[in-house]
């Protein structure tokens, strides 16, 4: 097995993605909130994202990395689907600390987990306390959509102190200088937002994705790159992994839970499992086209 050479600080989650790409396919990253439809069910839902190991039957691969989303009152990057679930989770009383329970639930399956959260929730918990408790729960790191390295002094110190990955975002509008600085500040992997816009399912994959990944690789050829925003099915996921190391799926998973609740079956995870199976098959079908 070969991984990309020294350079980027891959941390736990970047090493995982590097190992998967070395095996000949792209990695699959799945997002769900903790707390939706309620905290207890959300723990089952994040477990359902993970590979289902059953005796003599490993035919149900899952995601390679779980993003546990913390609902926030003012989620300025979230599209309507993710907002709707997050708002309901908050109304039902989800707390910051519940994210650590979700991370533990994922880690217990043998799958890695990162938390995705807007910065104020970490700031109020205390950056060092948050990093400590996330590490203790078995988490690999965190994605911070509204925190760029410019304002991240405290977070960089906390993640260094507790050995966590810190995944920052880059965008098609980022300058080359900012891409280089952001990639250098990341540990783990780099989150490329491939479309200019908020989260949400899009029917067509973004043309901006490949160009952005190329620019990130110019800044650091060893960086692991995940591409998110807009992917909803296995075919789209496969397309993304032809040029990126990982594909990130969020809204398409969240909407299965919203649909279940709308149908009066909030505990029904069958829709979620079906989408995960399609996505997992999609990235595995990419073996022949990954160079």
């Amino acid at each position, binding site marked *: 097995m070969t991984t990309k050479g020294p350079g980027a600080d891959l941390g736990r989650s970047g090493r995982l993605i590097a190992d998967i790409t070395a095996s000949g396919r792209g990695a699959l990253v799945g997002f769900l909130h903790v707390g939706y439809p309620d905290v207890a069910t959300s723990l089952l839902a994040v477990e359902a994202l993970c590979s289902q190991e059953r005796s003599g039957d490993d035919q149900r691969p899952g995601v390679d990395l779980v993003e546990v989303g913390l609902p*926030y*009152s*003012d*989620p*300025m*990057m*979230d*599209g309507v689907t993710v*907002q709707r679930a997050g*708002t309901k989770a*908050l109304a039902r009383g989800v*707390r*910051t600390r519940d994210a650590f329970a979700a991370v533990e639930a994922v880690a217990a399956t043998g799958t890695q987990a990162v938390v995705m959260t807007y*910065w*104020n*929730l970490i*700031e*109020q*918990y205390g950056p060092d306390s948050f990093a400590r408790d996330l590490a203790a729960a078995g988490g690999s790191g965190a994605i911070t*959509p*509204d*925190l*760029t390295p*410019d*304002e991240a002094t405290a977070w960089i110190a906390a993640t260094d102190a507790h050995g966590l990955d810190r995944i*920052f*975002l*880059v*965008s*098609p*509008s*980022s*300058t080359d200088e*900012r891409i280089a600085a*952001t990639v250098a500040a990341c540990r783990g992997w780099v989150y490329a*937002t491939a479309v*200019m*816009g*908020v989260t949400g399912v899009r029917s067509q994959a973004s043309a901006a994705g490949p160009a952005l990944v190329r620019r990130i690789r110019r800044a650091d050829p060893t960086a692991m790159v995940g591409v998110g925003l807009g992917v909803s099915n296995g075919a789209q996921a496969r397309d993304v992994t032809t040029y990126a190391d990982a594909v990130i799926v969020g809204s398409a998973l969240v909407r299965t839970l919203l649909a279940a609740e709308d149908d009066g079956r909030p505990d029904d995870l069958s829709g979620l499992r079906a989408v995960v199976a399609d996505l997992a098959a999609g990235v595995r079908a990419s073996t022949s086209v990954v160079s």
Partner: protein
Amino acid sequence: MVIQTPSVGSPPTLPDASGHFDQFGGKFVPEALYAALAQLEAEFHAAQADPAFATELNALLADYTGRPSPITEVPRFAAHAAPTGGVAPTIVLKREDLNHTGSHKINNVLGQALLTRRMGKTRVIAETGAGQHGVATATAAALFGLDCTVYMGRVDTERQALNVARMRLLGAEVIAVESGSRTLKDAMNDAMRDWVSSVDHTHYLIGTVAGPHPFPLLVREFQRIIGTEARAQILQRYDRLPDAIAACVGGGSNALGIFADFVPDPEVALYGFEAGGAGVQTGRHAATISAGSVGVLHGMRTYVLQDADGQTRESHSISAGLDYPGVGPEHSWLAYTGRGHYEAVTDAEAMDAFALLSRTEGIMPAIESAHALAGAVKLGRRLPQRSDGTPPLILVNLSGRGDKDVDTAVRWFDVDTSGSPSTAGQTR
């Protein structure tokens, strides 16, 4: 009198180059917005250095807005602000209510509309609470031929329906925001979401000294003219500086506008009056500095109304324009350093002041501005006489007029709108 209209302002010491007022301010935004903020900052600095920009803006402020706005002494109102057995203060209003579109909001909007044109963008978006900033933005968009979309919380569209109609008549699209608390903060969230998707051709014309850098800086500089004019007007009429300045604070643009030129004058006390809603002790208020804690909201570190986890609390105020759970970061800094004083005024106190100014002076203030008037009454009752024996001089920023608030006032005071039967010509 001729007032020197300023250029857009001399280089201020704060915020620093990265947009911080010490621990406050900054840029807590998605990377996708960074390029647009950098472009805006560069364009603002280029405009400040370009005499043609100041010339064009000053011409608009004079010929379109009607600046300078006058100051008005209000002795019949001030008589109600005397301490027990004492002498009434001198209260002077800075009449931003007389600006075109009815409030101070137009000052900032014209400046940012010129920046929009300089950046080659063809569309503006805005958030609005009371609708004053939305109306001002729709007005400037009409004047400059820009497309305009205004985000307004559903709750606010209902309590400020007249301003929704004004914006539509001016040609703007008005979007009623249904998310969250359906008020100003949620309108800002949706405007930010729009901007992330449309940033190449759209300018987000923020209406207050809040949000990520450079908005707190540039909105302050476009509103600075309020205090620059008022300082010269007060000096000319009273031959001294005011003892205190009173302004209402939601996001805080009218307050910083009138404060800015007085910040270096330590003898001038700066008072910001926040919306105390039903009373700070009830939890139903928008008194961010008085009762909040430091956090990050809408791209800035500032005082925020939030729970222990950092989830933003819903704010409450009879005044849509003050109904915001954050505040501009420079106000947080002024409060933190002690240069500014921030206090809460309840809905009831503000409505009393609304009625008092209307009935004693024939000036109907915006309910936002009525918070500053109520604050001035409190100040008048407690500020000491000056050492020369004259009463204290209090300058109030009358940031807007009350036409938009008539419906609210009718409900609050249970005003009979049917008129009394005529008895003219009847013999008694």
